[in-house]
């Protein structure tokens, strides 16, 4: 399947140009901090002004932040494809999320604790349901194909992308808006700090041994994918596969690792045995997220279209790995995005440069 359009919203802004700028500029300290019970934690939150878009968010006054991020990214993916005519009845939506609308869930719990069971907010409840974001996407964009929300923690996005490919192959949809969204709030920052440890300087140091500290992030990434390469596709998704440490990865020219401190021991990344020429981890640009793979995938897609290799923003602490330390124009054909979980299982997304004469894999 081919990536025809991409939408992204993260702490550095909105859209492909914001992603490109972030990749060129490298790491910058996060601008926001979450206050939780007298403690302050750096987090990569989406600036409020980036979430202002009356046209796209029309009719979503009661929607929560998670849904707004998702709708903006999905809408941008559709617009970015520059396809003026797609059959929206045959366009599907798959939303991947690690933790869903937990901030709204806690708002709903506030209602129970503050006002009692009989006086809780129906709006908070209906927005706390995991598939609220997908519903807003289908309503905002008039998309009426199959609409699904899935969660598989660290592998949520990969499962969604694999399914999008299946839908396209079997003809359940002609186009699929597939993406991921997660939010960071006060309680999640507390949990992240307690379980993973948040880096005080806001800097994720991928591959650091014995453990990388996390810096929670939030945002949304969506892709418009199709079997056909209408327009100017970013790249082709050649494969989505799941495996375990030790299985040989594909000999891609560049491996993007989702090393972001979410796995307590990131030795899986450092010890991977793929014969890749170069590796990078861009998580310091958007923060630690269960759906971080979607952001890596966006970076990979952009690199394949632009034919630029971007420096890994925080290359230190990566002994034994050939980490990209400079940004330069260079031919890139194949990029793999690799994520490990706590059980040393991995998920690999294989992206390939689109060429006019190469047949599209089914």
């Amino acid at each position: 399947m081919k990536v025809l359009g991409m939408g992204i919203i993260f702490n550095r802004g909105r859209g492909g140009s914001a992603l490109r700028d972030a990749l060129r500029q490298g790491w910058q300290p996060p601008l926001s901090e979450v206050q939780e019970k007298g403690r302050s934690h750096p987090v990569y939150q989406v600036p409020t002004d980036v979430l202002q878009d009356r046209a796209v968010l029309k009719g979503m006054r009661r929607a929560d932040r998670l849904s707004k991020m998702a709708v903006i990214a999905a809408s941008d993916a559709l617009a970015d494809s520059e396809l003026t005519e797609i059959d929206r009845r045959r366009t599907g939506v798959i939303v991947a999320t690690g933790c869903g609308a937990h901030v709204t869930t806690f708002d709903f719990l506030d209602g129970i604790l503050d006002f009692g069971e009989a006086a809780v907010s129906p709006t908070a409840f209906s927005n706390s349901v995991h598939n609220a974001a997908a519903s807003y996407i289908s309503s905002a964009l008039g998309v009426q194909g199959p609409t699904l929300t899935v969660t598989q923690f660290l592998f949520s996005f990969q499962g969604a992308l694999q399914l999008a490919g299946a839908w396209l192959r079997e003809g359940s949809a002609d186009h699929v808006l597939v993406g991921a969204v997660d939010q960071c709030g006060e309680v999640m920052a507390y949990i992240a700090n307690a379980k993973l440890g948040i880096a005080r300087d806001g800097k994720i140091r991928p591959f650091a041994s014995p453990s990388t500290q996390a810096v929670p992030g939030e945002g949304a990434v969506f892709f418009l994918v199709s079997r056909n390469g209408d327009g100017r596709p970013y790249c082709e998704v050649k494969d989505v596969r799941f495996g375990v440490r030790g299985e040989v990865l594909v000999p891609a020219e560049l491996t993007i690792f989702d090393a972001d401190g979410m796995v307590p021991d990131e030795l899986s990344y450092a010890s991977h045995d793929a014969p890749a020429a170069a590796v990078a981890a861009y998580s310091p640009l958007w923060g630690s997220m269960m759906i971080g793979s979607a952001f890596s995938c966006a970076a990979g897609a952009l690199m394949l279209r632009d034919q630029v290799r971007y420096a890994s923003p925080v290359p230190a602490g990566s002994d034994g790995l050939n980490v990209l330390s400079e940004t330069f124009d260079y031919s890139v054909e194949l990029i793999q995005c690799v994520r490990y979980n706590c059980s040393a299982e991995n998920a690999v997304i294989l992206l390939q440069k689109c060429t006019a004469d190469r047949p599209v894999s089914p």
Partner: protein
Amino acid sequence: MMNDSILITGLGSISAAGTTVSESVLSFKNGNRICGPVTLFDTSLKYPVFEVRHIPSQFHREGLRTISLALTAVDEALAQSGLLGTVQEFRVGVCLGTTVASQLNDLEFYRAYRTSGSASLEPVDRYLKGNLAEYVAKNIGARGPRLTVVNACSSGTDAIGVALSWLRNGICDIAIAGGADELSRIPYCGFGSLGIMSVELCSPFDRDRKGLNLGEGAGVVVLETRESARKRGATADLFLAGFGASADAYHLTAPHPEGVGLVAAIRKALAQAGIEPGDVAFVNAHGTATPENDLAEGKALANVFGNNVVMLSTKGYTGHTLGAAGGLEAVFAALGLRERWVPKCAGFRDKDPVIPIAPTDRETKIAGRYAVSTSLAFGGNNAAIVIGRGVDQ
């Protein structure tokens, strides 16, 4: 062309209607409706619920009730399919739908955090290890794809649709699919706030219906390619013929009043199955017993199948089990085909004059070979599956 390449080699269920499939059949036969006040948590609300009274001890996981329910149904389905203990020898995927198990919504954790700024992380650990598909896959040794579908009340049906896609695309050879959900205080309060729960026993499609009763349970099917079943010598009388899904793109909580999304989903499922509406023997409808759902669904079913379709909702026996509903109702639809009868739509008394069709008012014999099961969800998701029964040998 008839699509019978994906077999159903196992069924498993647990709900207020019974701890096993056969117990559920008995409840349907006898018209048992085991519904009462909430006993699983303290609440000031008075809406009756359909609780599962007994989970076999070998499947009980402390603090993980949804998973306990799922493991119970999965074990029964695997036993029927002949896969119990041998799952790891095959390419088996697990796709399960849920709502409650996907949410970090532990009230006591949050209360403690809110009060003191510190809380035990035990509920968080439980949440993190409790991803439904992941937990079940690891428990049974499945090594194929895993995905937890969180599509609100259509999650179970959608999960079966995902599994069908996996099988047809060669992503796995066998898939365990369906849904599970426990009764939880959070949606109990949430549905209460929406004003769609009844203080009486629910009465799907009835003229005087007043709303839904929540329930809990798990319903699971084992799906398998014909080739995989042949290789291991398994036989099956049922197959999953088609799946269709469509979004209303209309409203966050209300279905489209004419059920346009549901019509589209059913037509897709029928097309995938390669059959016509007239081939369908009966429909196991979503039928929550809320005024809006039953009206929209009744109109949609009449639109597709005509006014004489045999139709029922089994929620009068189980309550609305949310993410489990699609799984349970797929199992019950399959049972209807296999047993060649469907039960009375429990709770139904009088036809609603504004709904063009009426559900079964007695046990009804079934002659055809296809059944449809439908699900509607928050967010305007609609999903339908077509189950077929093989030609008599």
